[in-house]
């Protein structure tokens, strides 16, 4: 078990309800607008102080490493993209709040390749990064055409290598996400979009903030306060996207135009609505439909009940505390 939040820190600056400062280790993806795009505004707006969190921020390049770090007790909270939701869904962490609904996942094909719709994918060499939303959009596309993963020749590559391989004429089809998809479009302009998220309205690729299972039990207070921060930033970023992009770019060194592109394909839900979705079961449904895709791609053996890995109580408490 981790040491709990009982540190006798100085009183927070928040005037009306002086709370004890709690410590929290937060991981995030600093090349993602959904990761650094929450952290940077929180820093700029002084929200950690406001909500009394003595925060340690640790940048990562991907989701799975954060889950590893959580299991090793190194971080309490982190952000993962929709492609990694199978990890909490398999019990390795707990979802504490949905983040964005991704609109940026696509299956692309070279103009002369003869691939124009999902059915044409049969027998093709498809570049796809393993264990991410690229794999999921491909699975959905294949499913919609009555095909399975076995009907294509999977070429597993790192996300950036997908672009190298596609632009370098090594593969004709790529299942990839933004902003790398934009790079492909720029380099090979007559590329055809074979499938994209909007083709599958029933399945939303939900990214999420997750907490380690230990943190949820032992540091519930701190995690809840993180959600207070998150709820505030979430609303802020919907209103002030440009500002958030600028802050994020400054904080992480990532190119602003690329972060802006990511923001464009990320659909954010206002915090009130998240609360409502949590309460009426929409959130559970969304994660369950996501799990079905994971079963399809072989990431999971069976669909688990979302209520076992999505904690909606903490978010509710956070919203209550803010109002």
């Amino acid at each position, binding site marked *: 078990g981790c040491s709990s939040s009982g540190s006798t820190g100085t009183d927070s600056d928040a005037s009306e309800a002086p709370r004890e400062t709690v410590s929290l280790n937060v991981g995030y993806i600093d090349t993602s607008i959904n990761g650094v795009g929450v952290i940077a505004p929180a820093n700029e707006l002084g929200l950690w102080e406001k909500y009394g969190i003595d925060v340690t921020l640790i940048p990562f390049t991907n989701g*799975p490493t954060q*889950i*590893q770090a959580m*299991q*090793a*007790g190194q971080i309490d909270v982190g952000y993962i993209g929709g492609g990694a939701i199978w*990890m909490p869904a398999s019990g*390795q962490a707990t979802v504490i709040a949905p983040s964005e609904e991704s609109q940026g996942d696509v299956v692309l094909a070279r103009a002369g390749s003869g691939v124009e719709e999902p059915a044409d994918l049969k027998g093709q060499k498809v*570049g796809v990064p*393993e*264990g991410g939303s690229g794999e999921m959009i491909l699975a959905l596309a294949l499913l919609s055409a009555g095909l399975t993963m076995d009907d294509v020749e*999977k*070429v*597993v*590559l*790192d996300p*950036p*290598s997908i672009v*190298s*391989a596609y*632009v*370098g004429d*090594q*593969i004709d089809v790529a299942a990839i996400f933004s902003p790398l998809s934009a790079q492909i479009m720029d380099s090979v302009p007559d590329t055809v979009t074979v499938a994209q998220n909007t083709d599958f309205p029933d399945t939303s690729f939900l990214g999420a903030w997750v907490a380690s299972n230990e943190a949820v039990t032992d540091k519930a207070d701190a995690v809840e306060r993180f959600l207070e921060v998150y709820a505030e930033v979430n609303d802020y970023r919907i209103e002030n996207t440009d500002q958030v992009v600028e802050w994020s770019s400054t904080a992480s060194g990532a190119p602003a135009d690329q972060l802006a592109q990511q923001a464009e394909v990320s659909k954010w839900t206002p915090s009130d609505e998240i609360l409502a979705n949590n309460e009426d079961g929409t959130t559970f449904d969304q994660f369950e439909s996501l799990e079905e895709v994971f079963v399809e791609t072989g*990431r999971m053996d069976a669909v688990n009940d979302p209520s076992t890995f999505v904690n909606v109580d903490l978010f509710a408490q956070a919203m209550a505390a803010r109002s």
Partner: protein
Amino acid sequence: MTDIKAQMEAVSISDGSRAPGAARPKSQGKRGRDKPLTWLYVTTLVLGIAIWWLGALLGNNVLAPTPPQVVESFIEGFSDGSLLMNTWASVQRVLIGFVLGVAVAIPAGFLMGWYRWARGLLEPWVQFFRTVPPLALIPLVIVFLGIGEPAKIFVIFLAAFLSSVLATFQGVRNVDVTLINAARVLGAGDGTIFVKVVIPASLPFIFVGTRVALGAAWATVVASELIAAAFGLGRMMQSASQFLDTPRIVVGIIMIGLLGFVMDRLLLLLERKLTGWQETR
């Protein structure tokens, strides 16, 4: 004092060279002397596994697999044939990349050690690329060599080449000048001196290079198999780490470690055969 002596005997036997003290009366012939080393190997193996097991149990962490979990994963991999297939794919790549790397490194090292122009032209690049992470080169390799087998082998080749060329180069620089002179006064030209003097005289260095290259080749197999590999131990470990299937990662580590160990022993045998003439400890 006694330790040195004992050591000298052991070496003299295992080297095939006869250092002073080789025929110490109290030792009971070849078998008698090799036995303790075998026991030490067993001891260290048991110790290592014990420490690992203890660490895994104490850590009490899903990610630290215990030996039984790993054994289970091994059995699974064997029974569905995937482990052998992956192993075979990697062994091929490593062997080809390693052999090519060393085969190019030895002449390159010689050229660099011997001719000013070669040193001037090659050394900066060798030194430069030696420090460049293979991981960082992968996007470029894909652009120029595609995603097929050649690209993967190239990454391994590069690692093997870059880590052994330096040792060869150094070996050439360290050849005793009197031996070169002896060959020259017997009428040997550059080519003959290369082949007949410099290569044998720098064999101890070349073997260090070769063995380091073998290590580097195996150590790069994961990076190389990031390039669209369908099979391979590196590939297997990559996906295992996606699933946080740590027992399978450990299976991969053990396989690579064992294969590397076996190949290293073969190199060592070759070395002993080829450098038995040395008058060393």
